[in-house]
Each structure stands twice: as C-alpha cells, then as structure tokens.
C-alpha cells in the first residue's frame, strides 16, 4: 500500500485543519490544571485560543523576509505531517515530514541577527536531536505490533498500548518536547521567569508569532494523535492515555527545574530511548502473550 487513499487524504486534511482548536482547548486546560497545582485560579479554558486570535489580529511587522518565508513553510509542512498521520498514511513518512517542519522552524529562528534567537535555534537543534530518534523508534514499535507501518493498520490492530507498556515513557518525553515543558523548555517558553527572553521566537511578533504558534500546535497535535494511536480502538482508553501522559508531563514540568541542554538530551535519550528499546525488545513476548489471551493471535 502506498498509504494515501483520496478520501482518507481529504479527511486527514480536514482533521489537520481542525486540530488547532483541539490543541487550543487542551492548552487552556493545561493552564487551568497548572494554576490549580500552584493554588491559582488560572485563565479561562479558551484563553490560548483568544491569545492566538489576538496575536493574529495585530499589526504585521515582519523582521526579515527569509525568516518569514521559512516560518510559512514550517507551518505548511507541520500541517502536512499531521494530515498524513490522520489520513492513515505511513507513520515513518509522517515522522520524517514532521522533522522537516522542525528543521524549517529552526532555520526561521536562526535567520535573524539577535543572539537570543541564535541561541534559541541552537537549542531547538538539541531538541530535534533528542526527539527525532524517539519518534522513529516509537513508529517502528507500533509497526512491529501491527505488522504494518501504515497508521490506518496500526489503528485497526489490537491496541499497541497493551503490547508496548514501556513506550509510555517515550511518548511522555515526546509530549514534553512538543509542548516545550520542563526539562525540555530550553529553547523557548511561555513563562516569564525564563532566563532566556524568548529564545527561538525572539524576533517574531504579531501574526508571525501566531503563525509560529500555529505550527507548533500542529506539531503538538501530531504527538497527541500519535499517543492516541496506541489505543485508538478503545476511544476511552485513548483519551485516558493522552490525559495520563499529559498529567505526568505537567507534574514533571512543575516539579523539575529547567535542565541544561546536555542533561535534557541525556534525559530524553535515557528515559525515552530506554523505554522505546525496552518496548521493541518486549513486544514479541508481550504480543504473543496477548495473542494467546485474546485467542486470535496478533496479525504479524
């Protein structure tokens, strides 16, 4: 199968176009939960969406044409990666396209003079280095359970979550990276107490910052969909899985200080990579066990 059927592709494109609303809501909930952890009330759940529309409506003051162009390309590619995933296309291809989107964002950040932006871009490279192998290994792990690397086949197979429990660690790290949560907030963060002004998005303002945000929301939606894929046949379990991963990431975010780039990389590769490798090693064993329990046996 070359993956993308026309109807599936249309649905994928529609899904990807709607995804930012979902991510906006999740981020709103995130702010409420974080506020509750810090004994605050927090903003309305729709606040993240308000913020985005407010930014988009501001006066356009682009700093540099190359940077602005790369930012547009970044958002298009991130949208495309999400569409491939939602259309049931090849997981590894979707991951590679997402990687291309991240590369374009890094170049957009690096293209301007401000040393803050340069520093942020360097740190984004570290995050790319930290996250990309984990995404690839997770895709391979899904594929090894489903017998196919098509997202549609993974969705149709018995929930991979049962055969790949340790992959939860990897997915948690990936979500932390996608949302730039501590200890993976080294390139840019929403919080005012950051020592770095805004890192990679320093020179982006108004609608351009909104565009950068939108691109990141597509990336976050990709990771959320990727996590949900572990149990998509059992929607309640899928929602619970995403929520549980998210809560763990939030707790880590609120407990851990910002790490140095080196330790962030070490944590990502150690925890996330270890989880993925353990999942790959245990998948045949657990898959067989599960197959025995379910009676049917997993399609290999």
């Amino acid at each position, binding site marked *: 199968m070359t*993956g993308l059927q026309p109807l599936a592709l249309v649905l994928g494109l529609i899904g990807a176009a709607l995804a930012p609303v979902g991510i906006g809501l999740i981020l709103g909930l995130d702010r409420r939960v974080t506020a509750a952890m810090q004994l605050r009330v927090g903003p309305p759940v729709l606040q993240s969406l308000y913020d985005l529309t407010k930014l988009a409506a501001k006066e356009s*003051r682009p700093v540099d044409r*190359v940077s602005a162009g790369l930012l547009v390309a970044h958002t298009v590619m991130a949208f495309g990666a999400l569409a491939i995933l939602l259309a049931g296309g090849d997981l590894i291809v979707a991951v590679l396209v997402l990687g291309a989107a991240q590369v374009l964002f890094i170049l957009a950040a*690096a293209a301007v*003079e401000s040393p803050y932006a340069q*520093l942020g871009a360097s740190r984004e490279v570290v995050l790319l*280095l930290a996250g990309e192998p984990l995404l690839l290994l997770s895709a391979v792990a899904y594929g090894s359970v489903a017998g196919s690397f098509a997202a549609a086949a993974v969705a149709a197979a018995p929930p991979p979550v049962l055969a790949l429990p340790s992959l939860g660690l990897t997915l948690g790290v990936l979500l932390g990276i996608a949302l730039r949560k501590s200890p993976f907030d080294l390139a840019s963060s929403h919080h005012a107490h950051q020592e770095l002004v805004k890192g990679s998005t320093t020179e982006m303002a108004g609608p351009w910052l909104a565009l950068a945000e939108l691109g990141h929301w597509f990336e976050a939606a990709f990771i959320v969909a990727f996590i949900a894929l572990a149990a998509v046949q059992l929607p309640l379990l899928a929602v619970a899985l995403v929520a549980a991963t998210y809560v763990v990431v939030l707790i880590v975010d609120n407990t851990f200080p910002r790490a140095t780039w080196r330790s962030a990389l070490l944590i990502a590769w150690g925890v996330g990579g270890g989880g993925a490798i353990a999942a790959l090693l245990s998948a045949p064993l657990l898959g067989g066990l599960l197959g025995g329990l379910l009676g049917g046996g997993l399609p290999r």
Partner: protein
Amino acid sequence: MSPLELSTAALLGLPLVGSGLLALLSRVSQTGAARRAVVTLTLLTLVALGASLAAALALGGVVGQARRFALGLGPFDPATPAAGFAWSVAPVALALLFLWIAARARSSLLAVLSVAQLAVAAVAAAAELGDGVAAEGTVGASLVIDPLAALLLAVSVGVGGLIVLYAIDYEPLHLAHRGLPAARAPLFLAWLVLFMAAMHLLVLADDLRLLVVGWEVTTLCSFALIGFDGDGEAVAAARRALAYNLAGGVALGVAPLLLGPGATLSGLIAQAEIGPGGATWLVPLALGGCVLAAAVKSALAPFHPWLLGAMVAAAPVSALLHASAMVKAGSYLVLRLSPAIASVGPLGPALAFLGGVTFVGAALLALRERDLKRVLALSTVSSLGLIAASAGLGTPAALAAGALLLAFHAVAKALAFLVVGAIEQSTGTRDVEGLVGVIRHRPRLGGAFVVAAAAMALPPFGLAVAKWALLVLGASDVALVTLLAVGGAASLALWTAVTARLIVRRDGTATVAPRPVPLLIQSAVAGLAVGAVAGLLLAGPVASVVADPAAAVAFGSDGGLARGWSVALERAGFAVPFVAFLAVAAFVAALAVARRIPAIIPQPYLAGVNLGSGAAVTFHGARADAVEARSGGFYWGAAEDPSAGISSGGASDSGTRAAARTRALEVAGALAVALVAVAVVVGVLLPGISP
C-alpha cells in the same frame, strides 16, 4: 567485438587515451593555445564518454530491465593467453610501483604493506602462470554489464564528468593560489580522467584480475591526487590514504589467490549460494577479504581516517573521492556481493552492524565540526555506512535501497563539495563561523548549498526515501533500527545546524570582496543542483529503472521498491508525490510571502539596550561602553577553544571528551570489524549456519 562490447571498451579506452594526451600536454608550456587545447581535449573526452555510456546503455538494454550481459575485451580479454599474462602481471607491476613510492617516502610502513601486496600479487600470478598459460575462463566473459554496473557507470560519467568540467576552471585558480606552476593543471585533469577509467574497469570487471587492477589503479590515482599540491600536509595525507588502501588491497588480493586462476565475481557468488554442500571453506574467506577491502575503500569505521585526511586536496579531488569514484568502489563491491554475503552465515548481520555503527558514529562526530569540508567528509563516511548496512541486510529490497542511496548520495555530495570549493575560492575560508550569512551574500552558491543539504536530509528527496526504506527493512533488528534512528536524527541535526549558521542575516561582515565564479564552475554546480532538485520526485523512477532490476539480477527476485512515482514495501509505503507536493507548496507559499515583505533591517533584539543603528549588534554595556553581542553555532562535542570566538550558544566540550568521542568510533568500528572476522571464521568452520 559486438557493438555493445565496443561501447563498453570505449568507456575504458577513451579516458585512458584522454588522460595520456593530457599528460603529454602538461609537458608543453601553458600558452593560450595549449590551454585551449587542454580545455577542448577534456571536453571532447567527456562528451565521447557520455556518448559511449549512452550507446552501452541503449545497446545493452540494461536500463529498466533485469538483464545481464557477459562481455569480452577483444584482444585484451584475459581469457586469451597473452592478455591473460599481462593482466596477471599488472598487479605485480603496480605493487612494485607502490614499493618504489614507499622507498621514495622512506616509510617502512608503506614498504611493508607494498611488499605484502607484492607477495600476494606474485603468488597469484605465479599460480596462474604455473597452470600453463592455457586460457582460463571463457573468452568474452571477463566483463559484465547489468543494472547495478550501469548505475555506477552513469554516476561515474555523469557526476564524475561534471566534476572534471568544474576542475577545468577550478584547478588553474587553485594552482595560482598555492603558487604552483600552471603547467600542472593538465596533469591534474589527466589523473582525474584516469581515475574515471579505473573506476569503469572495476565496475565492469567480472574477472577478478581486472577487478584487482582497477582497484589498485584507483588507489594509485587517489594517492597522486591527494598529494598533488606537494606541501607537507598533502603528502602526509596522501601517504596515509595509500597505507590504508594498500592494506585493503592486500585483503582484496586474497580472493584471486584463494579462488585460483580465472576466478570471477559471478563465480564467487554462485559458489557461495550453492550453500554448505557445494561451497568450500575458501568462499567465506575470499568473501571476508572482499568485505574488508571494501570497508577500507569506502572508509567505514575504523578505517575512516584516510578519507578525513584526504580533504586537504582540491575540491574536485574531494568531490571525486567522496561522490562518484573511490569510496563508491567499496560500496559497489559489497552491493555486488550482497547475495553471497547473505548466504554465508552471520557475515551479513556483521556487515550491517559495521555499517550501522559507522552511520551513527560519523554523524555524531560531524556535529562538532566547524570546517565545512570535514563536515562533508564525515557525512560521507556516515552515508557509506548506511550503504554497507543495506548490503549486509542481504535482501532484494535492501539491495535496491542501497543502490538508491548510492545514486542520490553521489549527486548531493558532489554538489556539496563543489559548492564548498567555489565558496572557499571566492571568500577564502571554509570555516562555518567565518561563513556566517554566506547564503545572504552569495545567493546562488548559497542556494546550491541549501539544495545539497536538503537533498541530503529532507523527505522526499531520494536519500531520505532510501533511509526510510532501510528503517522499514531493518525494523526487526532492534540494534540496527536503533542505530538507524539515532544516526538519521544526527544527520538531520547536522545539516540543520550548519545551514542555520550560513543563513543568518549578517551585514557588513564580508571583509574581502568576493571574486566572481568562473563559467564552467557555475555550469557544473548548476547541473548538479538541477539533478539534486529532481531527486525530489525521482525516488520511484530511479528504483524502477535501476534499483529494482539490479536486485532482480542479483537475487533473481525483484527489489519491489518502485510503485509508480512512489516507493513501497510490503509493510509500508512512501507517497513521494504527496510529500513532494507538500514541499513544493511550502516553498511556493514561502516565496509568495517573502516577496511581499520589504527588505527592511530593523534593530535586532538585544534586551532593549541597543547601541548603534540598523543591524549593528552592539549593546550598552554595564560601564557605558559598547559591547558586541556574539553568538555561535551548535558544535556538540567540539574541543573548547576560547580563541575561536565562539561564545554564547556555542556548546563545546573539553578536549579530553572530544578525544574520547573520536576514540569511541574507532573502538566501535574495530569491534564491528572483529565481528566480521568472527563471522568469516564461523562461516569457514560451520558452513551450515544461516543467519
């Protein structure tokens, strides 16, 4: 001789003649007329080579079809007694030449290695002559042309031809810059063209004697070209390359020695595939020798240092070594032997591991480099590791993926080296930190570099599609797939980090006015850039035209990668057209937006304490003085060098840590080579074991 035989013979003979004439022309003083003659002669050679390649491919019909033709060499066919004698003695003569070089260099290491080679070659020649000069093998079967050979020939003639074209304009400038006589330029071209002839010989060879001769002549050419400038650094690098490749040559020489007179590559493969019943213990040993020789030639860890040293040479030499010839000879040999390797017990997995380790290790090492040519060199080592891994996987689809990698890597890497050479000639540096913003100042050359970087790292360019195929094919091997995932991320990060520095907007840093770029250099770069951009859509067609047929010839079953414009495997599919559409849409949208933005240069953000106007990055210091804000790139694991001017953002390690990482790759590579050796021993002792 048949027309097909004539056209393949032309591929061998034409560059030989062209090279000889160029060498003669270097004896003439370089007046305007002589210079024009050199240019005309080189262009004629290239055009004639292109024509004979086209004729060979058309007559053989090996493009798009799984066909294989055994060819003779006419009067030079080794199956005829006199020519056979000459081909057997040629390696001895070459070994004597190497011994002479060793004596002139007063290097005992080189002497020992060339004596070892002399011994191997002499014993093999004596064995053949001792058999009576009776013709061994069948007449007219010493060469072979099939899709894999056709691919290598196309790479050598197409990419190699553009490199020679570039060299016509590059070398005189380079010689002038180095203060060397201009008369050496034709000699330089002569060596480049001879290199192509040697490459064609080893690619077409089925008879092991021809393979060995081609192999050793590439060693000779690389030695001459790396040391061409004659300064201490170049000579040292050339000797190092010679030492490594002589050792590899000894390993290759073992194969004809063991298999006896008239042995062929196809015979070796057939013997290995018969399996434990028919194959003798000699076969795994001969295969092990070939794999080792290929590992040295394609600079897999721990044999990579020779290729890193070789980057002192001029840009066309680097491009030829890294893209179309030399290292690709090693990749070609393991791909050619892939079915045989797969049938000798654990040799395949050991080779795949060696390739995987090289892929990751070299990519991680490259992350710390600031010298653009070193970045490119380590990235080559990394990609060659990937090709070796695909040969080690030993399935038709893996062989097809390896062939795809080889083709697309040749175009992208040649482009990258030629662009870096042109940038260096134009700006005087190849230090990434010295070239910050070069894409802004030199949009054409910079754009070509971006194209090369994208072709190397991003989907759906052919290289990325081949990497995807290997991830899918290696998915069941946890160690290999981990190596592939980490290595893939490292090379993506590498190209991003380098391009991120070159794309920074930086005004007024160009201290030296850049020199204009000569026409032939521009044409060669443009030709390769067009090829690299075409790679956006060509993964499927290239798979169907050469990669799948190559697998079909080697394994008897199709690689099965091509699916129209897409690439597909049993368990997955890469919808190349959709991803290409996405990439083009992103590019067009970016262009449309960028065109509407005025070329303004607002003050950069410096926490609100900017001093000076426009793009100046000086800020108001604590003592009311002007401080310049500096930033550097990401060089993970670079030895700390305060004088290098990397401050904020330049992540660097202590010197010991950097050295430890260099050693780690060497140790891991040595371990992997030891595994290959163990696999050979297991293959000899327990022929029944299958992977």
